[in-house]
C-alpha cells in the first residue's frame, strides 16, 4: 500500500512544481493539477478497497521515525480512507468543473486548490491536535484565497466581502483553538488526540475549559446556527464548484474533526453536540424556507445536513457501532447530493430558484436533480434512507422521542423546500438563457449521479451485511421501474406495452403468495394498474418521465403487499409516495398541489416511521405481524402514529387538503391511477394496522372509535365539498375523500361485515372512480375545460363517455341494481351490530348527499344545453374509452355475482371475525339481519324496465328528436345555451343551508402553519445582517451560550 502521507506529499510536490512552471503554460499546469488530484484519489481509493475487501485494521503512520505522542502520526482506517476519497474526488471533479476559471487564473490558483484539498485530507488523517490546527488554518487560508481569486468572475465585490467575513470568523476560531490546544497540552502533557482521550482530559485540572475551547472552535467550523452567517455568504457568492468542495469536503473534514474531539470529550459532551446539531438542523432548514437564491438555499441545506450529522455523532452513546453506518450514510448522501447540486448550479444561468426551469429541456439533468433531492431527503434507495431508518429506530429504542420528533419535523421542512424547488424546475416558465452544457461541467454532475446510485447500492449491501436487510436496489419491481429510465428514449406505446406486460407478469409470478385479502389489493394494484395503463396508449411521442414515475409507484405498491417486515413496508411506502408525486407533478397546473401532496405524504410517512421505530424498541428486525404483541403503554402510541400516517394517504379529514388539487390537476390517465389505485395503499395500511393491533385505548379514548368518527366526518365533509365544486375532476376528488371515509368507517367498525364493506369499497371505488376519472378526463381533453358549467349536452357527441358516467354514478350512489348497492346493504347490516351509533348518523347524512354531486356531474356535463363551441366535439380517444368499457363490464358482472370476489374474502375474514359473516346460499346472500338476491333484483328491474320501455316504444314509436331550443319556456324562447344551461352554483340553496360546514377551516389551519413557519424563517434570517462584525458577535454569543450549557452539565 502506498503510504497515505503521499496524499499530502504528492499535493505539495505538485503545488510547488506549479510554482516552477511558466505562467503561460496553463494547460500543462491544469493537467498537472488534475493528475495530482487523481493520484490522491487513487491512493485513498486503494486504501478504501483494502479496508472494504479485507478485515484490515487501521494503520498508524508515524512521521519523523518516532512513535506518537512524541511525533505527529496519521491514521488510515476505513473512515479516513472513505473521507479522503470523498475529499480528493470532490476536489478532482470540482477542479474539472472549474476548468475555465482555473485556466484563467493560472498555476497559482491551481496550487491553492491542491493545497486546499490536501489540507482537508490532512484534517481527516492527522491524529495530532496541533497538526489538525495547522491543517485547519491551511484550509482556511486556501478557502479564503480561493474565494478571493475567484472574485473577478463576478467582479461585484460580494465574494470579497464574504471571504473577509470568513476571515474575521476564522480569526476568532483560531484564537480559541490555540488557547484550547495549549491548555489541553498543559493538562495532559501530550498533543496527541488519542493521548488526550486516554488521559481523560476533561477531568483534569482546567482541562474541561481547554477542551471546551478546542471543541467550540471545531464546532464553529461546522457553521452551527447561529454563528454561520459568513458561511452562507460564501455559499451564495463563491464559484459553485468551489462551494461543492466547501460543502462536501470541508464539511466532511470538519465533521470528522468534531468526531475526534468528541473522542476526547467523552460522554459528557455528547449532549452538547447533539443540542448544537439539532438546533442547527432545525433552524437552518427553517431559514432555508424563504430563500429564493439557489446557492444560498443550498448553503442553508448544507448547514442543516451538517447539523444532522453532528446530532448523529452526539448520539453515539446509543448508536454505538452503528454510528459509522448512520453518520456515513447521511454524510455521503449530503456530500454527493450537495456537490452535485452545486455543480448543477454551475450550469444554470440564473440565480433565482425559478431559473432552474431551464434544466427541463435536458431530461438527464432533471434526473440528476431528482436524484440529488431524493438523496438529500433520505428517500429509498439512497444511503440517507438506511441511515435515517436506523437512526430513528435507535432513538426510539432509547426513548429519545423529542429528538426524534425534531429530526423528522426538520427533515420535513427540508423536503418542503427541496420539492418545492423541483416543482419550479418542472413547472415554472423556462428562462431565456439556456443551460450551459459544457462537457466538463455536465460530466461533474453525471459523476455525482453515478456516485449517488453506486453508494445506494453499497449502502444496501452494507445494510444487508449489518442488519440482514435486503438491498432495496435489488428488489425486482424497483429494478423494473428503474429500467424505464434507460428505456425512456423509446416511443410511449412500446413502453406502455412493456409496463403492462411487466405488471401482469409480476402478478402471475406472485399470485400464489397472496391470501384473499392481499389478493384484492394485488389485483387492484397490478391488474387494475395495467388496466388503467391501457388509457396511456392514447399518448403520443415519448412521454419522457412518465413511465419511470408510474412504474416507481407501481413498484412501491407491488412491494407493499409483499412486505412482511416494517422495513420492507416502509421502503415500499416511500417508493410509491415518491413515484406518485412525480406522476402528479406532470399535470399542467399541478405544481402547488403536487407539493402539498408530497409534504403531507412525507409527513405521514415520518409518522409511520416513528411508529415503526417506537414499536421495534431497538430491535433490528421487526415484522409487521409482531405489532400485535405490543402492549401498553407503547401500543396506543404506535397505533396512533401509524394510523395518522395511513390516514394521510387516505385523505382523512384534516389531512385531506392535498387530495383535490393533486387528483384534479393530474393528467387524464394519471388521475385514475392516483385515485383509483393509490388511495388503496392507505387502506391497505389501515387494514394491516387493525388486523395486528386491533383496539387500542389511548388515555381513555378508544382509538378505533375515534377512527370511526373520523371516517364518518370525512365521508360527510368529502361529500359535502364535492357538491359545491365547479371543476369536474375536483368533484370526483372530493368524492374520493368521502368514499375513503366510508371505507375507513367500515374498517373501524371492527366487525365482519364492516370489513367486508370496506373491501367492497376498495374494489368498487377502484372501478368506478377510475372509470369516472377517465370519462371526465376524456371530456376535459376534448372540450379543453374542466369547469362543468362550460359544458353541457355532450350526451350525443360523447355517448360512450356518457354511458360510463351513467353506470359509474349509479354504482357510486348505491342505487340497485348495480354493485354499489351491495356495499350499502353490507353497510347497514354491519352497523346493526356496532355499539357506536352516533357516528352513523353523520354517515346517514352523508349518504344522500352523494346523489347531489353525482347528478350534477352527469347533468351539467352530458345533459342540458350543448354549447356552440362544442358542437364539433368528438368522442374521447379510443384508448381512453376502452378501459371505461371494460370497467362497465366489470361493474355489471360484479353487480350480478358479487360473490365472485366477496365470498373468498368473507370466508377469509372468518378467522379474524368469526361471527356475523354472510351466508352464500345459492344466489341469495343472507346476513344475521337481512337478505339480498342480486340476480333477482337485476332480473326484476330489467323485466319491469323492458316491459315499460316496450310499452312506451309502442305508444310513442314515432318520436323524433327535436332541436335544442324546442322547449316550453316561460313566455320567451331561449336562444343562447349559456343562459339556458342551469349549471353554475348548482346547489345554491344547499350552500345557504349547510355551507357553513364547508368553510375551509382545515386549509386555513395548514396555511397558517406554513405561513407561520415561513414568517418565522423570514424574521429569523434578518438576524444575518450581512455585516461581518455582527457575525463575530454571533460567534462570540454562541460560544458563551454553549459554554454556559457545557459547564452547566459538567459534574
Amino acid at each position: 500500500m502506498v503510504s497515505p502521507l503521499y496524499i499530502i506529499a504528492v499535493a505539495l510536490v505538485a503545488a510547488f512544481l506549479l510554482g516552477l512552471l511558466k505562467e503561460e503554460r496553463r494547460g500543462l499546469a491544469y493537467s498537472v493539477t488534475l493528475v495530482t488530484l487523481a493520484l490522491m484519489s487513487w491512493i485513498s481509493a486503494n486504501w478504501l478497497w483494502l479496508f472494504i475487501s479485507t478485515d484490515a485494521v487501521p494503520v498508524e503512520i508515524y512521521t519523523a521515525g518516532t512513535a506518537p505522542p512524541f511525533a505527529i502520526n496519521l491514521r488510515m482506517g476505513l473512515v479516513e480512507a472513505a473521507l479522503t476519497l470523498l475529499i480528493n474526488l470532490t476536489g478532482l471533479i470540482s477542479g474539472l468543473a472549474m476548468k475555465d476559471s482555473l485556466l484563467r487564473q493560472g498555476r497559482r490558483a491551481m496550487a491553492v486548490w491542491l493545497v486546499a484539498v490536501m489540507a482537508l485530507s490532512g484534517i481527516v488523517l492527522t491524529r495530532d491536535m496541533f497538526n489538525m490546527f495547522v491543517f485547519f488554518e491551511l484550509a482556511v487560508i486556501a478557502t479564503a484565497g480561493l474565494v478571493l481569486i475567484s472574485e473577478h468572475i463576478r467582479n461585484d465585490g460580494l465574494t470579497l466581502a464574504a471571504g473577509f467575513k470568513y476571515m474575521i470568523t476564522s480569526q476568532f476560531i483560531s484564537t480559541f483553538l490555540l488557547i484550547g490546544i495549549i491548555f489541553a497540552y498543559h493538562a495532559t502533557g501530550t498533543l496527541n488526540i488519542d493521548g488526550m482521550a486516554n488521559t481523560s482530559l476533561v477531568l483534569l485540572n482546567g482541562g474541561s475549559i481547554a477542551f471546551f475551547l478546542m471543541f467550540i472552535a471545531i464546532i464553529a467550523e461546522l457553521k452551527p446556527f447561529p454563528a454561520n452567517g459568513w458561511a452562507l455568504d460564501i455559499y451564495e457568492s463563491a464559484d459553485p464548484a468551489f462551494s461543492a468542495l466547501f460543502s462536501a469536503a470541508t464539511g466532511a473534514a470538519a465533521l470528522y474533526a468534531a468526531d475526534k474531539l468528541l473522542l476526547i470529550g467523552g460522554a459528557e459532551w455528547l449532549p452538547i453536540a447533539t443540542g448544537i446539531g439539532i438546533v442547527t438542523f432545525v433552524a437552518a432548514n427553517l431559514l432555508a424556507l424563504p430563500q429564493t437564491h439557489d446557492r444560498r438555499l443550498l448553503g442553508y441545506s448544507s448547514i442543516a445536513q451538517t447539523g444532522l450529522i453532528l446530532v448523529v455523532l452526539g448520539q453515539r452513546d446509543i448508536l454505538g457501532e452503528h454510528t459509522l453506518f448512520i453518520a456515513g450514510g447521511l454524510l455521503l448522501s449530503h456530500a454527493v447530493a450537495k456537490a452535485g447540486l452545486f455543480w448543477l448550479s454551475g450550469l444554470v444561468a440564473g440565480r433565482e430558484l425559478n431559473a432552474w426551469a431551464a434544466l427541463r429541456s435536458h431530461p438527464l439533468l432533471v434526473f440528476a436533480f431528482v436524484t440529488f433531492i431524493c438523496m438529500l431527503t433520505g428517500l429509498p434507495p439512497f444511503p440517507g434512507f438506511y441511515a435515517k431508518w436506523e437512526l430513528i429506530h435507535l432513538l426510539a429504542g432509547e426513548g429519545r422521542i423529542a429528538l426524534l420528533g425534531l429530526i423528522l419535523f426538520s427533515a420535513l421542512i427540508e423536503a418542503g423546500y427541496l420539492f418545492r424547488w423541483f416543482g419550479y424546475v418542472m413547472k415554472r416558465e423556462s428562462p431565456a438563457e439556456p443551460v450551459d452544457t459544457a462537457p466538463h461541467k455536465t460530466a461533474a454532475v453525471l459523476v455525482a449521479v453515478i456516485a449517488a446510485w453506486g453508494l445506494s447500492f453499497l449502502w444496501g449491501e452494507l445494510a444487508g451485511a449489518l442488519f440482514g436487510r435486503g438491498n432495496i436496489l435489488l428488489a425486482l419491481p424497483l429494478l423494473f421501474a428503474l429500467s424505464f429510465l434507460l428505456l425512456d428514449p423509446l416511443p410511449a406505446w412500446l413502453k406502455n406495452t412493456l409496463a403492462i406486460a411487466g405488471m401482469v407478469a409480476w402478478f402471475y409470478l406472485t399470485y400464489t403468495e397472496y391470501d384473499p385479502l392481499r389478493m384484492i389489493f394485488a389485483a387492484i394494484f397490478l391488474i387494475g394498474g395495467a388496466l388503467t395503463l391501457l388509457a396511456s396508449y392514447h399518448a403520443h411521442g415519448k412521454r419522457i418521465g412518465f413511465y419511470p414515475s408510474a412504474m416507481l409507484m407501481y413498484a412501491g405498491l407491488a412491494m407493499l403487499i409483499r412486505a412482511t417486515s416494517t422495513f420492507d413496508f416502509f421502503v415500499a411506502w416511500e417508493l410509491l409516495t415518491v413515484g406518485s408525486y412525480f406522476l402528479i407533478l406532470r399535470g399542467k397546473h399541478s405544481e402547488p398541489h403536487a407539493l402539498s401532496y408530497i409534504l403531507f405524504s412525507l409527513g405521514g410517512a415520518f409518522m409511520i416511521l416513528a411508529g415503526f421505530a417506537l414499536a421495534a424498541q431497538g430491535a433490528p428486525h421487526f415484522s409487521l405481524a409482531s405489532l400485535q404483541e405490543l402492549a401498553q403503554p407503547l401500543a396506543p402510541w404506535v397505533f396512533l402514529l401509524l394510523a395518522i400516517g395511513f390516514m394521510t394517504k387516505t385523505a382523512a379529514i384534516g389531512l385531506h387538503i392535498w387530495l383535490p388539487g393533486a387528483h384534479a390537476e393530474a393528467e387524464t390517465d394519471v388521475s385514475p391511477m392516483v385515485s383509483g389505485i393509490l388511495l388503496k395503499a392507505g387502506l391497505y395500511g389501515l387494514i394491516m394496522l387493525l388486523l395486528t393491533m386491533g383496539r387500542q385505548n389511548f388515555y381513555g379514548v378508544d382509538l378505533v372509535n375515534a377512527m370511526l368518527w373520523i371516517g364518518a366526518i370525512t365521508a360527510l365533509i368529502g361529500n359535502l365539498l364535492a357538491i359545491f365544486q365547479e371543476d369536474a375532476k375536483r368533484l370526483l376528488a372530493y368524492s374520493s375523500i368521502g368514499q375513503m371515509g366510508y371505507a375507513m368507517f367500515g374498517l373501524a367498525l371492527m366487525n365482519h361485515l364492516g370489513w367486508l364493506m370496506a373491501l367492497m369499497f376498495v374494489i368498487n371505488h377502484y372501478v368506478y372512480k377510475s372509470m369516472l376519472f377517465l370519462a371526465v378526463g376524456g371530456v376535459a381533453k376534448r372540450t379543453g375545460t374542466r369547469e362543468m358549467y362550460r359544458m353541457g349536452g355532450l350526451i350525443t357527441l360523447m355517448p360512450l363517455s356518457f354511458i360510463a358516467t351513467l353506470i359509474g354514478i349509479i354504482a357510486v350512489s348505491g342505487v340497485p341494481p348495480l354493485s354499489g348497492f351491495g356495499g350499502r346493504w353490507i353497510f347497514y347490516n354491519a352497523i346493526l351490530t356496532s355499539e357506536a351509533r352516533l357516528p352513523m348518523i353523520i354517515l346517514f347524512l352523508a349518504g344522500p348527499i352523494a346523489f347531489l354531486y353525482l347528478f350534477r356531474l352527469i347533468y351539467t356535463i352530458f345533459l342540458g344545453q350543448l354549447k356552440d363551441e362544442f358542437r364539433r366535439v368528438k368522442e374521447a380517444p379510443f384508448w381512453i374509452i376502452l378501459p371505461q368499457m371494460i370497467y362497465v363490464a366489470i361493474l355489471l358482472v360484479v353487480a350480478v355475482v358479487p360473490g365472485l370476489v366477496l365470498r373468498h374474502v368473507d370466508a377469509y375474514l372468518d378467522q379474524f371475525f368469526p361471527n356475523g359473516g354472510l351466508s352464500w346460499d345459492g344466489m341469495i346472500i343472507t346476513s344475521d339481519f337481512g337478505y339480498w338476491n342480486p340476480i333477482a333484483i337485476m332480473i326484476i328491474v330489467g323485466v319491469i324496465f323492458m316491459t315499460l320501455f316496450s310499452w312506451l316504444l309502442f305508444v310513442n314509436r314515432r318520436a323524433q328528436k327535436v332541436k335544442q331550443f324546442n322547449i316550453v319556456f316561460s313566455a320567451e324562447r331561449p336562444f343562447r345555451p349559456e343562459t339556458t344551461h342551469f349549471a353554475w352554483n348548482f346547489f345554491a340553496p344547499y350552500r345557504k343551508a349547510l355551507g357553513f360546514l364547508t368553510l375551509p377551516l382545515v386549509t386555513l389551519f395548514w396555511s397558517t402553519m406554513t405561513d407561520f413557519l415561513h414568517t418565522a424563517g423570514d424574521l429569523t434570517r434578518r438576524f444575518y445582517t450581512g455585516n461581518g462584525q455582527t457575525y463575530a458577535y454571533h460567534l462570540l454569543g454562541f460560544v458563551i451560550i454553549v459554554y454556559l450549557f457545557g459547564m452547566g452539565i459538567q459534574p
Partner: protein
Amino acid sequence: MMTSLAHWAMAAGFVLILIGFYGALTNRNLLRMIVAFCIADTGVNIVLVAVGHMRGRTAPILDSAVPVADAVSRIIDPVPQALVLTAIVIGLGVTAMMLAYALKLYEKKRTLDIAKFTELKW
C-alpha cells in the same frame, strides 16, 4: 495564586486577546480590525509561551550550560516554543491574506467600512 511570572505573562496575553477582540468588534475600519487581530494574535502567542514556562529553568538548548544529562531538570518545556513558532507564521499568513482582502475591498467600494459590505445577507 497569581505569583509566578507565567501567570502574569498569561494574564497579559489574555488581556491582549480581549483588547484585540474589542478592537475587532467595535472598529468598523477594516485595517483597524486587522491590526486588532494582530494584537489578539500576539496575545495568543504570549499565552502559548507562558504555558511552557517553568520557574527557574532555562531555554531548551543543549550547550555547555545545559548538558544533555541534566536537560530534564534544567530546561523549560520546548513544545510550546515550537508551537508558537508555527502559530506566528500562520498568523502572518492570515494577516497577509486579510490585507490583500482589505485592498481589494477598498478597490471595489472605495471604503474600508465593514458595515458597507452587507449586500449578502439573510
